[in-house]
């Protein structure tokens, strides 16, 4: 008997979100992010499955939202329906810094322009969420793009198909080497 079922019906993400990708953030190979864009234009930033952190054998030592001396994403406070007070981020604004137990350091980025609504504080206390459920409880942040930019923001992002193409090309390169 199958212990777990392969879904025949669309999941929550399938029902409400479109998956977009940004690869090799800041030129660093394979540091890929997956942006889940809700039909109401809200974006959830997550790690793509090809990110080094999600590869076998990685363990997380620390997660920090302190981007610089004066800026911590934890200080972000929004209020009211129009989410006043949220930090407005551009595509390459850093969200958080992660240290893995093998000494590597990774920075995760916003990937889209928009107002920062919240960062996931659960991964501070339970970093394993990021590794086990990157597309659910292990999300990084939630952003609200400007209404006028909601269509154009995906111009610089890759579709799932384009992303898979890149993955194929990468493994082809590996084989050649």
């Amino acid at each position, binding site marked *: 008997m199958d212990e777990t079922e392969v879904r025949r019906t669309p999941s929550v993400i399938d029902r409400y979100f479109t998956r977009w990708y940004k690869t090799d953030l800041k030129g660093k190979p394979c540091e890929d992010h997956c942006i889940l864009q809700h039909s109401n234009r*809200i974006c959830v930033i997550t790690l793509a499955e090809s990110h080094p952190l999600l590869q076998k054998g990685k363990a997380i030592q620390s997660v920090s939202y302190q981007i610089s001396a004066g800026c911590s994403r934890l200080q972000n406070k929004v209020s009211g329906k129009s989410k006043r007070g949220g930090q407005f981020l551009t595509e390459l604004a850093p969200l958080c810094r992660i240290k893995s137990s093998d000494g590597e350091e990774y920075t995760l980025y916003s990937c889209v322009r928009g107002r920062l609504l919240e960062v996931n504080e659960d991964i501070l206390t339970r970093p394993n969420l990021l590794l086990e*459920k990157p597309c659910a409880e292990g999300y990084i942040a939630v952003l609200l793009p400007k209404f006028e930019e909601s269509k154009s923001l995906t111009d610089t992002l890759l579709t799932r198909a384009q992303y898979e193409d890149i993955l194929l090309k990468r493994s082809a390169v590996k084989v050649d080497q």
Partner: protein
Amino acid sequence: MLPLKDKDRPIAVALLGAGCCPRCILRFCCVSLQSAYRQPHEDILLELQRFIHAKVADESCGTAEEIPTDSPPCKKVRVETEQGGELPEGGEEISVVEGKSKICVVCLGVLQDFCNKDFAKKVAETVTSEKYEFDSLVLSVSLPAQLSVREHSAWLLIKTKVREKGLCLGKDDIIQVKEAFKWILQSLLSQQLGVPVVSKSPLEVSVGFTHPETDGDCHFLAAACSGCFKPAKNKLSLFTRMAVAKALERISEESFRRKFPCPPCPPATKCTVQEVQCLHAPVFVAGRYNKFSRTLPQTPWVIDGERRMESSVEELITTPLLASFQAEGFNFSSSGREDVDVRTLGNGRPFAVELLNPHRTRFSPAEVRKIQEAINKSSDKIGVRDLQIVTRDAVGHMKEGEEEKTKSYSALIWTHKAIEEQDLEFINDIKDLSIAQKTPLRVLHRRPLAVRQRVIHTMATRFRDNHHFYLQLRTQAGTYIKEFVHGDFGRTKPSLGDLMKMETDILELDVESVDVDWPPVVTDPGSGENPDLPGSPQHGGTP
């Protein structure tokens, strides 16, 4: 005979000389006998003239002239009446011609040409043509703001006359134009329509007057009393009646007299009457609705001018109501609402519709039942029960329900891991579970970000197969059920998945009951039971 006293004589003389109509003169003399105003205005004029020329036993001659001096000499009067004749008696000299075409400088004709049967007939005709159902009405009158300016000017004019006699005339003692006008028109209108004209009635008949020729009369007040005039978004003109009244209270007599003539200038035209507006107070219709479709939104779903989904709960209920009550608009509200893909079963969800400006309002319970049947026949996507006419206050009960009462749901759950029946037992024992829900991502674009504490009172499970089961829940109002099941990225804690230690998702959701006991159940006197609703599918099936 007019109830005028000797002290009123100088007022009457001054105002007649200034160009006031007979009824305005009565007002300034503080005559509060309504029947005096209702007489035809030629009769009032005649009686006024008789009064002016009447010799007072102890006085040898009258007082003021139109030229303000301190010495009151006796002079011969030449007053021409409408007939062109002269009054033979002596008295004061008034050098004014009271003719038919002269428009009153204070009321601008309102108390002259609009206080007769013909005008009342015109108003009555408009009301009848709109075919309202009514047994009373309230008359509301709106006059141009400059009337208060002209009134103020006339008052200043006679204030001095009154002071000379050692008397006091407060502005508040003077009968208002609106009041006198209503005294006359209300009884005429009542006669025409055969219903009483009262101070409070569901039907409001509004008569409005404008006088563009003298709109400029108010403008000097803006400079003299700038604090009173603030441009408000909804007002067409800066010079609202309230603002003008306030300014007149503040402005000094000198400043006023400098900028505005005392008495006011005679107008060339009389007031124009705007179209008579009728407005009936709204009627409230309440009931409970069931929603049998998983593709029906609550309100019309339109994006960029394009309709995305056919019809809506709101439209299916209100369209027949608008037609039956011949109303011009509506406000639909309900005790909470459900998503497009969620059915509402059981007793249904309470709703109330405010029908605006209804032309038909009298419906027997049998007729209301017929409307309910018509709604139910019109579509199999919804069903309505307990349809009834209610009062505005009653609607408050419904909104109470939204915040305070509990709701019951049934959901079809999918589990990632395989389950057995015994794996579900622990859920049945959970009572009053507290959960914390961050604003769900699917509504976060239009709701503030917050954490909501909610209680799941009871749950009951029914096993279907290794990856599916039915979950019934009774929860506090305002609980997001879908997010409780799938966890919403971990932003609802604990979620059903957390409790079962596996990934869970919700495939279907139905509202089983909205635990508000309003509106009251309507029993069919014939059968003694609720009429059946059409097409209520079996629980658990997907329509």
